[in-house]
């Protein structure tokens, strides 16, 4: 896993963005940017050469699930690994995210260990698949 990879964190709550950013820092990732909504994240993703997207689901303008769908529908972004970190915990929602092509799904509240484990797993799978 490349510790220099560029990561975008999308969450409407700045506290949660800080928490995720700090946890990622602890895991050795430094190249991190933030967006507060799907609508602001999408242009960043399109122009930013990101390697990994961590997004919330419930956001005011564009929801995380819609962002995921936009990403999968965009030829340049279609293969971007996406992890959802969200309070949405209904089974239908998790299934919907899986069907939309999410790479990992973490339910809040979560632990630092869970985050580390899921990220490692996502990139292991990508590297073994590539």
């Amino acid at each position, binding site marked *: 896993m490349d510790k220099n990879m560029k990561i975008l964190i999308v*969450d409407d*709550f700045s*506290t*949660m963005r*800080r*928490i995720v950013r*700090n*946890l990622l820092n*602890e895991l050795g990732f430094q190249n991190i940017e933030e967006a507060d909504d799907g609508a602001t994240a999408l242009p960043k993703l399109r122009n930013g050469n990101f390697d990994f997207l961590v997004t*919330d*689901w*419930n*956001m005011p303008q564009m*929801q*995380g*699930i819609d962002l995921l769908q936009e990403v999968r529908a965009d030829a340049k972004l279609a293969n971007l690994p996406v992890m959802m970190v969200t*309070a*949405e*915990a*209904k*089974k*239908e*929602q*998790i*299934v*919907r995210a*899986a069907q939309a092509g999410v790479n990992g*799904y*973490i*339910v*809040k*509240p*979560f*632990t*630092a260990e*869970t985050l580390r484990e899921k990220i490692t797993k996502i990139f292991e799978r990508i590297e073994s698949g590539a």
Partner: protein
Amino acid sequence: MYEQANVNGFDIDQARQLVQSLEAGDVESAESIMDSMTRVRESGLYQEIGKLTRELHNALRSFELDDRISELASDEIPDAKARLSHVINMTDEAANKTLTAVEDAMPVCDDLKKQAEDIEEEWIRFMRRDMEAEDFRGLCRRLSTFIPEVSGSSQNISGHLSTVLMAQEFQDLTGQVIRRVISLVGEVEDNLVNLVRLSGKMTGSLGSVDKGKGLVEDSTKAEGPQIPGVDKAEAVRSQDEVDDLLSSLGF
């Protein structure tokens, strides 16, 4: 012209014709004029019934609005109370988690500080060459236990700081819940305003009051954290369950 020829639904021309027919003894045409006048009166009656029907319809529509209000009162307000109690629990838990982490980290810092101060005192004596060989050996022994302890304690403190960091996620979770309650309060307010409007002009034209209609629930709509004892939908309760579900889908 109509205004002059028509007084309260009576056609004056027709009335004149009726009088003329009767004076001329033409009973047949007098009857036909009477019939036509009655028809006009009846159609006015139909219009009146139509108006009443419309008012009845609007009144029934406002009863549907009442349904939404009773739903708010019976389900959603108690639901909001449970959600807000959950917010208290979450903030309480976060505050306690933070305080515990700080309380646990504090003595570790104090201990490091005290040991460092003791060592510094002896170190100053050593630098002043004011130290016996035996004391120096003691200083060396203390240093060799202190140095790994600094490393271990730093790790310990950093663990407590991580706990403090993670405890802050309550802000996001409670924020989502509070936003939902705020939108509920907004809806209650709108409905109350509508009620006032309705009771104020019950007989007037009501316009369409379709609030609360068209609320077809999307089962995957984002709705924030699940609240124990409030949310009845099938939800996962732990990250393990998320993982199980995803792996059952081939993840």
